């Protein structure tokens, strides 16, 4: 029987500071094993002695056996992760959950809206699209951060622009910022989509969903073509511990990526 709580060991190959709060970790499973994830899935990361927490994978499975996680130092485990260096080991369980709709999106246009750290799981999908570019139609990426210094993966923006439109905004600008200022929804008037062939995917803080979803509806995108990625504390990752439950759903099993039509009647979802 599989020991479902036993992590595999993974070595940290590289740590890159992205902002004051986020670091990008590149890891490899011991023995060079492939993680075998889908974009949008998450892993349970152990810093032994501190604990375990769910982190989404921000690299694409098309890019070799290494994988990446963009981690914000916000809790016990993530703060401990931030103290680790290349060569250190962590535990990895998973990948778990249901990721982004890779198959359903094939041949469709994609409208991707990322708020803050939401760009992390979406980066996995965006890289996947880059590596399978002919499978997908037009791609529009909206990315909003609170401040210019909080923009993640700055050096990859031009790559993202290479696959389609990529519009950036910040809630508050600073003296260096020449781009758009305003919450992410203020980018929407600049976007035109064909709602019948567009899949919309959004990942961001809970408060953002209420507003960005309204924009998707205004564009005429049907509920069953809209996907959201929901955050909860997935403690066990295997549908048992109960912590990540949204009404009857376990985010760790049935999510974290849900079709809007599946969760729109769940009062606890958004």
């Amino acid at each position, binding site marked *: 029987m599989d*020991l*479902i709580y036993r992590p595999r060991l993974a070595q940290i190959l590289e740590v890159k500071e992205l902002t004051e709060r986020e670091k990008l970790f590149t890891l490899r499973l011991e023995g060079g094993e492939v993680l075998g994830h889908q974009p949008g899935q998450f892993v349970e990361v152990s810093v032994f002695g501190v604990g*375990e927490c769910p982190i989404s994978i921000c690299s694409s499975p098309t890019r070799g056996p290494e994988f990446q996680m963009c981690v914000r130092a916000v809790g016990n485990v993530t703060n401990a992760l931030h103290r680790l260096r290349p060569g250190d080991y962590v535990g990895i369980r998973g990948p778990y959950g249901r990721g982004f709709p890779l198959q359903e999106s094939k041949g469709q246009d994609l409208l991707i809206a990322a708020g803050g750290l939401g760009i992390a799981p979406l980066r996995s999908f965006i890289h996947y699209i880059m590596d399978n570019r002919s499978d997908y139609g037009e791609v529009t990426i909206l990315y909003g951060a609170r401040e210019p210094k909080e923009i993640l993966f700055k050096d990859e923006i031009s790559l993202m622009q290479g696959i389609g439109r990529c519009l950036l905004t910040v809630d508050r600008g600073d003296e260096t910022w020449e781009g758009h200022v305003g919450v992410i929804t203020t980018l929407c008037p600049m976007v035109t989509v064909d709602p019948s062939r567009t899949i919309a995917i959004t990942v961001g803080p809970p408060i953002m969903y209420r507003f960005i979803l309204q924009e998707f509806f205004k564009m005429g995108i049907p509920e069953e073509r809209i996907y959201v990625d929901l955050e909860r504390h997935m403690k066990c990752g295997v549908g048992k*511990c109960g912590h990540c439950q949204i*009404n009857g759903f376990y985010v760790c099993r049935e999510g974290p990526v849900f079709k809007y039509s599946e969760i729109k009647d769940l*009062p606890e979802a958004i």
Partner: protein
Amino acid sequence: MPLKILPKESVPLFVDNLLRDYEVIGPLRKDGFYVFGSVRSFSDMELDYPITIYPAKKFFLPPRESLLRFKTGEKVSVEPVVEEPQPKVLFGLHPCDLHSTWLLDAAFLQETPDASYEARRRHTVFVGLDCLKPCDEYAFCKDMGTLYVNGGYDLFLTDIGDAYAVDIGSKRGEEMLERYADTREPTPSELKRLEAAHKEKEENFSNRLKFDIHNLPAILWNSYDSPYWEELAQKCLGCGSCTLVCSTCYCFDVFDKVELNLQKGERIRVWDSCLLEEFAKVAGGLNFRPSRVERLRHRFFRKGKYLTERFGKVGCVGCGRCTRNCLVHINPIEVYNHIYEEQQKSAA
């Protein structure tokens, strides 16, 4: 199913024989209450017991257990803890407790089986004991459909006076009976007494739920925004006693415990409760169920709707332990009836 007769005077020998090869867990009297505990001889047990404080789940889902051992520092290593459990006989489990095991099995053995649960479960023999009368005014097993059992045990005893009628529920049960007990075939009069016992049982339990249990998920769902939940949450102390004694609650928390030398440690699983404030909190402080009303409602919905729909069986077995231990007397059957009547009224 094959039926045997175990005379009451043969029960002590049966139990004492079992004790040679098994740890026997049975109902023990403790400070005026009953608990499931390890027995040293049959005389420790009181089979004519109403209900125990805690259910039997702790024998396969312990309140605290180690999942992993790890070493930190230069050379990190991790190994799972899978103990080969002692074979156990749970002796004298009532129908509600047998039903709750079915639910825990569904949670821990389906899809991604939990190895330590599975091992403990595999090494546990169930000897059930029928209830011929309600344990007290708090039980509502009949309403939850758990008054009768259809399998889920190795042996099942029914008191017919000077003997127990033993229903054999498994090959293991049959072998155990052959090996450890002095049984015989039932006489026609004993079969009649068993029938009479069943009839008496039927008469002794009354229905208290005012609607068909199959409608519970829908009735609950319709009550989502009812002010009644707020009213109930005003009473609720949020202490989590109900989840602690619940026979079908299985939520857990996991944490790392490190030895003082910081070189070694264990990953520990402990029972948790969705009624506690921290339960749905994520790192960064956001709490997805910040108010007591949301947490209390979640608990009721989890039993009466979410688990019910997931596993095809009501997530509550009606044992009444939650009510018995609730300091403010929140009683599920009253809650269910209240929301039902509220909906009847508003429909009229």
